[in-house]
């Protein structure tokens, strides 16, 4: 036995079975082609030569000895920086199914050491809390079958769109119409919206694929899908194209990309769908956007007007923010004016107990075109782990409270509420979205689901992948490295966008038809909802069912 002092160990020394993902490698199948080691985004595995001693005992000759066998194999690094992220790219390239990561079912040690050199853990992805969400558990239980002829999801006509933009009370609408006064702009859009993911966070191919898909949905399928840019502007060719009308431009606290946008206004062929002012996001409430230096490529640097290769942390608040009133007044009004009062402008905030305060302020602001609330399950390109996992408010009760607050004031038709944060987290995108709509949302924004469904994002809530922040996305979705993003064909992404929205459209009808709804989106139809938890039912003001 070695003495204790000769064993090489430090506080952060780990073995491969301490890691969240353990590489299983079958030597008998491996052809040593090297593809797995070449593709691994974090260099977690390496090819190595090993020597194995084989004791040899010749009984007849009464001789003892050893033989040594040499073999070549794949091994796993155990340092924190190179720990396996479980993306599984090695298995996807292996010709012989010889390698793949398996989740460590025991607790793993890395969580205690993710702060090397005093750097708190930053990552991309989502809130790593797996299991069915509250939204997943909501059932649509008010079925019109015998009480009235059920609708036919396949044959009847359905009106599925929603309204984005400030809606006047009917009396005021009529008064202004007679007087020839300004009527706030509204947009008729599909209630499932591709949520804000910036041009810096997503690769150019991903962005192009999404936009192609959105254009196809609008122009060929007749589904008026819109997508939101995150902070960071919009490519100039899009700003000057007729596709801008499918785009919600976001302005956030870093104001990145807005020089380009403002300069492009005179050359715009059409107005954007809307302007989103980001005050907060569900993944990292109270924290500004973060584009880490890995992803600030030449193109991104040019778009954002910054040097290449520097971290771009946006401030947590807007520079103009002195008070809600001042901020809302200044920003909403300024942006409305910039686009000639023809474009709805609305704020995006993170779910929080203060959402109602913001909402009530917006109700009194005649220019506010809606409110987007992003719940704790929202995803992001980069954030501190603690922000992502533990900061924020779940969307269901937050949205519901805000909606009921509007109902109490009789203003529920005026400020459309949009909800985000974990919609489709477990794949049930239409069910989750419709549940929120019936709780009072006018529509939902989804980001992670789109990345997973339309581009094959490998991330999950069990810590898989989650490296969107450092530009090494193995699928090329969130990387600015051409070697990586070339893996993603924009045409394929566009095809998947069309697939996804066609399927959502069908599922919406399959939910609405049994409820007897076809003429309008069932916003606030809470009598159709039930959940198998009395406390949640009580909180959301819906039925308890069991």
């Amino acid at each position, binding site marked *: 036995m070695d003495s204790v002092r000769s064993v090489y160990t430090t506080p952060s020394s780990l073995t491969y079975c301490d890691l969240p993902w353990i590489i299983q490698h079958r030597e008998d199948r491996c052809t040593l082609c090297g593809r797995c080691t070449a593709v691994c985004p974090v260099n977690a595995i390496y090819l190595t030569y090993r020597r194995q001693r084989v004791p040899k005992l010749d009984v007849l000759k009464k001789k003892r000895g050893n033989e040594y066998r040499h073999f070549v194999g794949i091994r796993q690094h155990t340092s924190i920086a190179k720990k396996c992220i479980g993306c599984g790219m090695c298995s996807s390239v292996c010709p012989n199914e010889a390698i793949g990561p398996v989740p460590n079912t025991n607790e793993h040690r890395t969580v205690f050491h993710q702060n090397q050199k005093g750097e708190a853990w930053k990552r991309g992805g989502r809130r790593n809390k797996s299991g069915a969400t509250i939204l997943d558990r909501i059932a649509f239980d008010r079925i019109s079958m015998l009480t009235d*002829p059920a609708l036919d999801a396949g044959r009847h006509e359905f009106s599925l769109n929603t309204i984005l933009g400030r809606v006047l009370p009917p009396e005021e609408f009529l008064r202004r119409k007679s007087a020839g006064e300004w009527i706030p702009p509204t947009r008729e859009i599909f209630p499932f919206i591709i949520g804000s993911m910036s041009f810096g966070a997503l690769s150019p191919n991903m962005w192009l694929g999404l936009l192609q898909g959105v254009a196809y949905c609008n122009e060929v399928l007749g589904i008026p899908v819109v997508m939101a840019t995150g902070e960071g502007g919009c490519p100039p060719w899009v700003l000057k194209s007729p596709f801008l009308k499918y785009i919600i431009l976001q302005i956030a606290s870093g104001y990145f990309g807005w020089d380009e946008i403002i300069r492009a206004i005179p050359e715009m062929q059409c107005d954007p769908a809307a302007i989103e002012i980001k005050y907060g996001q569900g993944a990292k409430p109270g924290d500004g956007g973060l584009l880490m230096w890995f992803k600030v490529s030449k193109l991104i640097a040019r778009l954002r007007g910054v040097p290449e290769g520097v971290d771009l942390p946006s401030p947590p608040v807007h520079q103009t923010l002195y008070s809600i009133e001042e901020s809302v007044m200044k920003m909403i009004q300024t942006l409305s004016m910039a686009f000639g009062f023809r474009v709805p402008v609305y704020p995006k905030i993170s779910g929080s107990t203060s959402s109602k305060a913001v909402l009530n302020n917006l109700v009194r602001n005649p220019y506010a075109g809606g409110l987007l609330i992003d719940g704790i399950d929202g995803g992001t390109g980069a954030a501190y782990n603690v922000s992502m996992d533990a900061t924020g408010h779940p969307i269901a009760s937050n949205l519901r409270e805000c909606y009921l607050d509007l109902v109490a004031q*009789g203003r*529920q038709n005026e400020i459309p509420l949009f909800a985000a944060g974990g919609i489709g987290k477990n794949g049930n995108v239409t069910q989750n979205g419709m549940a929120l709509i019936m709780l009072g949302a006018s529509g939902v924004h989804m980001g992670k689901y789109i990345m997973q469904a339309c581009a094959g994002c490998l991330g999950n809530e069990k810590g898989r992948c989650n490296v969107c922040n450092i530009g090494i996305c193995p699928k090329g979705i969130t990387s600015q490295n051409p070697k990586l993003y070339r893996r993603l064909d924009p045409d394929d992404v566009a095809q998947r966008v069309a697939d996804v929205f066609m399927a959502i459209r069908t599922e919406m009808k399959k939910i609405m038809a049994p409820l007897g709804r076809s003429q309008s989106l069932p916003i606030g139809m809470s009598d159709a909802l039930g959940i198998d938890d009395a406390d949640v039912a009580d909180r959301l003001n819906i039925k308890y069912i069991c």
Partner: protein
Amino acid sequence: MCRLALKSSDTPFSPYEVLQAMEAMQEGYDGSGLGLLMRGVQFTDFNYEKDKQVILSGIAHTEEALSRLNGLMEARGFIQKYDHEFKVHPEMIEASDRFKYIVRVYKKPEGMSEADLEESLMQTRLFLRKDGEDHGGDLTVFSFWSDVVMIKEVGWPLAVGDALSLNDNRIMARVVMAQGRQNTNYGINLYACHPFFIQGISTMTNGENTAFVPIKEWLEGKNIPGYTGYQSDSEVFTHILHYVIKKLKLPLQVYKHVITPLKSEELNNHPQGDFLQGLRVACRRLIIDGPNAVIGTLPDETSMLVMDAKKMRPATVGGKPGTWAIASEMCGVMAMVPDRDPAFDFQPMREHTVIIPPDRKELLIWTQFDPFTLPQAA
């Protein structure tokens, strides 16, 4: 499902005729109650003058409620001119707590503007209703308005008519609308029975309004007096009609545009498309959903019929100059106006509003694709 029947005629007729038409339509229908509304009322025992008098309709369930009612009306300064006594056969009535069916004529208060009077009449009705609810439901009030009589009761419609001797011609009317069901989907509540009434406007519906809760929440949020009750999902149709005509002061044509707006691609080609698109957005919480035929009447004896956008609850209108009928079944129309030419019967489609105007000379059929004049849309 609810049987619906409406008859409108130049000469007053017995409401029993409409009940007989409902009997003709009995197949496939629930017969759990009767809701009846009469306009153009004529009493044999009293010379009713609609310009000078208003009528209170309801039920006093106990003697104490009746005497309380007398006191309350007196205290509010209403002078009773006539008390209609139905020849009641209590043994034919399912319910036992019916002390008196109230159809009482009061002198119309003088010296008030039209708007104040309308407000006062409705507030009185709401006050009496509240008073009844505060006393364990011993007083039910259906309407308090000029030239409107309402009766609501549990039981087979024709049997209710017999029990109240409606065939004795002591009470007749030029417009009668009747509905044959209590709200058996939920608990029986007389207030849940169609037709519904607010400030002279009344509608009845068959079918389920699946968009009920969001519409109800929106109407309640307007804090408009009288937008209460909602024991039935169909009551919102009446209040939407009231809101469109009385609050928004829009013409009757617009009602259909509010409850079942045209699609965007249709409005893009409509002469008032821009206005109607804006109206659809502003009134989107009032879009109804569900299989419904809505039959309504207005104070000037106009009758109307509209369908839901899927036309899943058909209704028929037919008749001849001077007499018209609307019913949820063709045989109902046949029973009410047998001597008409059935070839001219009309079954409205999703875009139609059928109007029987007060002169009853011919049907008006509006479609939503028609242009109309409206200053706001100019």
